[in-house]
């Protein structure tokens, strides 16, 4: 390019240093900086990952023998209910919102989110409902114990008859989580639609932003149904209405519709941003443009549309008519098409690339492996007769843990490692990262693969005891679960030691393309401030030699002076 005297001055902007005097205090305050909120979200989520994981390990301890002998059955039921609730509402959604907060403004060149105070309020609801949920362990009668679906009438049975009971606190917490997610979704959608840098058209946006936009649109459409359903459940529980009580003329199946109308799309809220992470990472570590960018971007929107019309596939044995079973089976199968487009696009991106297997790439490849496995078992579950057999068995538990842990959580790990240098200003330790990957990948498959044969043999999910013929695979699964528990140790060690004494990170350690890599590490409070670059080409120009923004050399020169 031509030599230009223009200096964006991006290198001279003051970077906030987390270790500066009193710098850490902003993480405990009502801070409105999206990058602070992002780290608040991720740190909170990781704490709850430990809590949820601990509950899971107690469950797997119980299930290592056929008899109910480690904990009381009531305790087991509380544990599995809280495990699911914590992992979804206090780990998965918050950690993804953390990534959204860190990545979206930087990727589109916005100084912050559209509504910073709303953003902070949405975050601070998380510890509030987290405390409410944890407090339910301490109320008389114990925590909610009707599963994370909380189907009535079993969820409406309140053995002690107290007004304040575990189930009521659970409903309040879930409703608050919904409010928080709606506030977040408004913010993310508005930010993406209204605050992009000049020249960044929708079809020049990084795929992560497309998937975040798609996921947050689902939140806006679906969450009101769940929240409404939950409020009616609360009324049934505490003030004696009978929306779902059959003895009062209510219909318990109605709740199942409200619940799954949101809670199936919720899976796409989780997996879509992870697809976004895969789409960002594969081009960087294969040194090739994302194959078929526009197809991949549009596929996210098709998934949004279809995800809203598949919910009855959770209810095939609930007593729904045959036409409904056929219709919802076909819509569910159709989701395989846009999903397949993405998988094939990733493979074509990797094909003939110059692959670098560092920790984020290993997690992304491992996540893709697990996701494809979950995908093919998902097709089996979509077909009604097979679903009738394995519905509510361990086959389903295995399937969705491959999605939620094998693909989504591993994708989140990939994202954390990939963007760790950018947002902390420190490099992580590659050796510990690879150890973390190895333990996670082996643990995941050891833990969740055995659940498939168990389900096919007919072992129901949510049981605290089982017939002896299921013992073999359960022992393997439990060993895998304990290995997953161990895998967290190198991860936490890596995070903490890198933060404290990791090597200083340059602005662009991976030689990646993207606006976030044209910022110093960590980025200044207002990102580009008055020097927002003008985007002149698509997001994945690897090997093309095309600059991403006007005066790119000036930005890079300025960064090198830091």
């Amino acid at each position, binding site marked *: 390019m031509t030599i230009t005297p223009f200096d964006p001055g991006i290198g001279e902007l003051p970077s906030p240093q987390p270790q500066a005097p009193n710098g850490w205090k902003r993480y405990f305050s009502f801070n409105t900086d999206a990058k602070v909120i992002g780290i608040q979200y991720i740190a909170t989520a990781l704490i709850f990952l430990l809590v949820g994981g601990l509950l899971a390990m107690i469950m797997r301890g119980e299930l290592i023998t056929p008899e*109910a002998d480690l904990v*009381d*059955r*009531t*305790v087991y*039921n509380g544990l599995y209910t809280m495990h699911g609730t914590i992992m979804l509402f206090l780990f998965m959604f918050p950690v993804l919102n953390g990534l959204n907060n860190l990545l979206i403004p930087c990727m589109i060149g916005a100084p912050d989110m559209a509504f910073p105070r709303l953003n902070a309020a949405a975050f601070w609801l998380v510890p509030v409902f987290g405390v409410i949920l944890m407090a339910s362990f301490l109320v008389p009668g*114990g*925590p909610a114990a009707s599963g994370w679906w909380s*189907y009535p*009438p*079993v969820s409406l*049975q309140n053995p002690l008859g107290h007004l304040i009971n575990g189930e009521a606190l659970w409903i309040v917490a879930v409703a608050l989580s919904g409010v928080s997610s709606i506030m977040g979704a408004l913010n993310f959608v508005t930010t993406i639609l209204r605050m992009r840098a000049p020249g960044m058209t929708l079809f020049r946006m990084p795929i992560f932003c497309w998937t975040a936009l798609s996921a947050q649109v689902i939140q806006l459409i679906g969450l009101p149904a769940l929240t409404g359903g939950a409020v009616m459940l609360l009324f049934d529980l505490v003030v004696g209405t009978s929306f779902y009580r059959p*003895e009062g003329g209510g*219909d*318990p*199946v109605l709740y199942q519709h409200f619940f799954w109308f949101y809670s199936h799309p919720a899976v796409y809220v989780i997996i879509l941003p992870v697809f976004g992470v895969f789409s960002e990472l594969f081009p960087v570590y*294969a*040194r*090739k*443009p994302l*194959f*078929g960018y*526009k197809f991949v971007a549009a596929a996210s929107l098709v998934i949004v549309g279809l995800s809203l019309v598949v919910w009855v596939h959770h209810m095939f*044995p*609930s*007593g729904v008519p*045959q036409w409904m079973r056929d219709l919802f*089976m076909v819509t569910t*199968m*159709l989701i395989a*098409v846009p999903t397949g*487009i993405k998988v094939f*696009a990733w*493979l*074509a991106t*990797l*094909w*003939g*690339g*110059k*692959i670098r297997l560092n920790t984020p790439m290993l997690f992304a490849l491992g996540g893709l492996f697990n996701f*494809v496995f979950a*995908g*093919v078992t998902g*097709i089996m579950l979509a*077909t*009604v*007769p*097979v679903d*009738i*057999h394995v*519905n*509510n068995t361990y086959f389903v538990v295995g399937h969705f843990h491959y999605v939620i842990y094998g693909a989504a959580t591993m994708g989140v790990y990939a994202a954390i490692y990939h963007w760790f240098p950018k947002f902390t200003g420190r490099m992580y330790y590659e050796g510990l990262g690879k150890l973390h990957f190895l333990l996670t990948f082996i643990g995941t498959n050891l833990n969740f693969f055995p659940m498939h044969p168990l389900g*096919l043999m007919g072992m129901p999910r949510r*049981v605290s*005891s*089982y*017939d002896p013929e299921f013992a073999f695979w359960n022992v393997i699964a439990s060993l895998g679960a304990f290995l997953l528990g161990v895998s967290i140790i190198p991860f936490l060690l890596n995070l903490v030691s890198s933060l404290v004494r990791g090597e200083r990170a340059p602005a662009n350690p991976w030689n990646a393309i993207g606006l976030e890599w044209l910022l110093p590490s960590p980025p200044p409070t207002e990102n580009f401030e008055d020097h927002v670059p003008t985007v002149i080409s698509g997001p994945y120009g690897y*090997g*093309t030699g095309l600059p991403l923004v006007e005066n790119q050399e000036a930005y890079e020169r300025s960064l090198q002076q830091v």
Partner: protein
Amino acid sequence: MTTTPSRPGLTALSGLAVWLGLLVWFSFWMGRQSYRWLPVQASSAAPLVDGLFSFETAVATFVFSGVVSVMAWVILFNRAAKYDVSDAAPIEGNLRLEIIWTVIPLVLVMAIAAYTIDVNRQIGLIGPMEHVHGGPEPAAADGSSPAFEIEVISRQWSWEFRYPAAGVTSTELHLPLERRVGLQLRSEDVIHGFYVPAFRLKQQVIPGRVIPFFITPTRLGRYRLRDSEYSGTWFAANQVDVVVQSEDDYQSWLRRAAKLPLQPGLSDASREYALQQGRSTSSGYATVVPAPPPMVNVPGSNTLPHDG
């Protein structure tokens, strides 16, 4: 799909053909293996479900191993050299390829869906999937036996089976071989799930509704009926046996059972609850008290070896 625009060589193409052939063989083999992962087939629905599952296993194996092959190939052969920081060839897409991998999965999943709808229809003809909602109950075909021979009552936490024509109640489900039996499923408290893995059949039992359900057992033996919808504290223990007998044995069992005096039926929950009440300390949270075991002619057994 090659790295360079040049035409792939004959060796590459034949290598690919051999590999695809191996994958197809492996997929067929997995499809055949899949029958061994399932319980014995004891109802008319089971072979249909298993056939569909076998087909899906073969397709799934092919897709999964195909994707993993590509991943393994690039990890083995497309690695960047140690100090190579250059970019690879900037291939941004290929419209024809993208259309192909949109259309092929579309055709594939729609073919699976068509096969499945066909299986649905067949199972519906034979048995349980045709239950009606609020519609009239199907009348007896010839008047000799009622359309619904057995009433199934689920509770927290026991299963009770009533044979009104024979005047028998039991906590062990006895069924005749090779005859389509109509069941009426009811729940007295929460949603339960009527699930017999060997029959490949499952139905939520929803309080406030009477759900008609049909089974045609096809194999003699003793099987497990498991509560498949989480129903509270002793959900896991809410399991009983299903005994499939020849028509003659079934009828003579009914005759003998009708003469037996009523006694408390099986309920592991009640037993465990009584044990817990006997202890001075409690290690659990509050629980719903189990319903008393139903009074039945035949309690049956929960501890005999079962076939599936």
